[in-house]
């Protein structure tokens, strides 16, 4: 039972809102401050440019000892993100450190959109597609961006 919200979460939230990182917005839910509605704008010159991607982020009770749980809610064609929106990112798993924070996590996800890494895949078929025919994979990613990440 947490009867007081750790100062760390308050501070992180305050900073996320007062000095948002470019292309990223994170707002705590009205009924649960540990749950954040996240929006990441697709980075320029990536197949996701122009897309608005919704994610959810949850801070478990042992945060910051364990990483936040993050998931894409918007469908995305990316070798490191699977059908369920789960993200393959080292800092969300074994490379997590309590010195990292929500902001760094979201910036890393943004960077992952700019630089997909098919050698460390989560969605095997997408990664395969990316490796065998990168051009085609990228145009499919663009197509999905238009289809699913279009504003709403």
């Amino acid at each position, binding site marked *: 039972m947490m009867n007081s*919200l750790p100062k*760390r979460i308050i501070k992180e939230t305050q900073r996320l809102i007062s000095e948002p990182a470019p292309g990223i917005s994170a707002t705590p839910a009205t009924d649960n*401050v540990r749950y954040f509605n996240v929006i990441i704008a697709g980075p320029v010159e990536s197949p996701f440019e122009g897309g608005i991607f919704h994610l959810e982020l949850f801070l478990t009770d042992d945060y910051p000892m364990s990483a936040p749980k993050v998931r894409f809610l918007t469908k995305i064609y990316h070798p490191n993100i699977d059908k369920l929106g789960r993200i393959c990112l080292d800092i969300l798993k074994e490379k997590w450190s309590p010195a990292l924070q929500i902001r760094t996590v979201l910036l890393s996800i943004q960077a992952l959109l700019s630089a997909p890494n098919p050698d460390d895949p989560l969605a095997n078929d997408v990664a395969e597609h990316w490796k065998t025919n990168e051009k085609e994979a990228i145009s499919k990613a663009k197509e999905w961006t238009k289809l699913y990440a279009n504003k709403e």
Partner: protein
Amino acid sequence: MIDCDIPFSILMMLKNQSGGNHQHQHTTPQQHSSSSTTQSGTITTFRNKRDSDISDSSGDEDYRSSSKSLQQLFVGLTEDFSCSICYELFDKPISLPCSHTFCKTCIEDLISNSKLNNNSNTFLCPLCRIETKIPEKGIDGFPLNGFFMSAIEKMKKANNFCPRFCDQCTTKKVARKCEQCNLFLCKGCCELLHFVGGQKAQHQILLVDSHISSDFDLETHNTKDSELDPPVYIPFNVSRSQCSTIFKNWISSLWFAPSDLKVNLSVRYIKPIYLPYWIFEVQTTTKYGALISVGSSSGSGLLTAPNIYNSHTKFDLIWNHKINIFSDKYRSAIISNNKLIDKDLLTQVQSWELTNIPSVDQSVPPNPKIQALAYLIDESTAWKKYAEQKIRTKDREVCENRIKSSCGVSGMAKDIFVETDITRVASQKVFLPVYFIKYIYDSKSYTVIVNAQNSKIIGHRPYAQGLSLFKMFK
């Protein structure tokens, strides 16, 4: 698992920071409630500031902005001395072999967490990821960082002199702390935040007196009183700038060197305040008397030292039994809110004569921008506990003096009696205009009060004479 009340207030705070409906929040509760008078009063005080020289809070403004940049400095410093795991100031800081520092408890948490995960006797430094061995003695094997500990102690001390501002509105001084929300708030914002959807949130609220924080939020004048006579406000004769000069002259008439003053003394605020008094106008009829001798007419009076040769000289002392009845008028002023006045200054303030009190019908309306402190002592208490005794003592003194003077230069009096009969008492609420000044010298804070009716000044001064003299000659 998570208290539903928490998110709400945080959100309120966040909304405000992102330019939300702050104004709206300030106005809503005033329509509800009985306690809104004080609140709206405080708000006006902060709104229109520059009407007259007296209520002009430019000093406050300077003070506020300078203490804000001071606060920012502290925020920066605090971050330098904060643990990158819990974001709090280091608590028992320990340094890992890689020289990165964390709270002892945070590393303990980390170790128990990584043990759960991989059952090893090493863990990674959260900052540089260097593999770190858990010492044989366990967590106690890591040395405490004594330098950080003493630096933090000093910083906390210094920070006490940096007034905190409300986390919510960032303009008013902190008066409350909510344990659940983990916020420092001013009185108004605290009420607003915890009044959710017509219901009061059940949070544990602590009164915080952070340095000078709540000084003037303590008790403002409650306008609900329905006394027969309206209070009388004595007008301000001394402007803020005059007050500032009076203070400067007073402080520089002290022993310390002018250069020392410039460097080490900083004025935190000069604040005009109406200080509440009960004034009792009392009519007494006193019967007094004594056995009086007017002394010898021969001139070798009783007052000359009797020497051995004339000690047996017989004087014809004629004792007259004199009784008199006299009617007198007294005025007694009782401060009825002394929360802001230090005990040792109180007697001095109490001794201030309240003169030039306008009568009720001549009374000028008070300056609405100046706070009037509330009456904390009611009329009958003020009379019974303080005024009556003072007046009886005073009357006795006056009568004793009359008796003595009727003895002549060499006369004597004995069997003195004084019976004071209080025949009429009239009371009146009077607000005396004063300035409260707070200044810091050598990281201690001092209070000064200036009577804005007659320019009298009293206050605390630094008494560390040796130290300052030493500074002077250095």
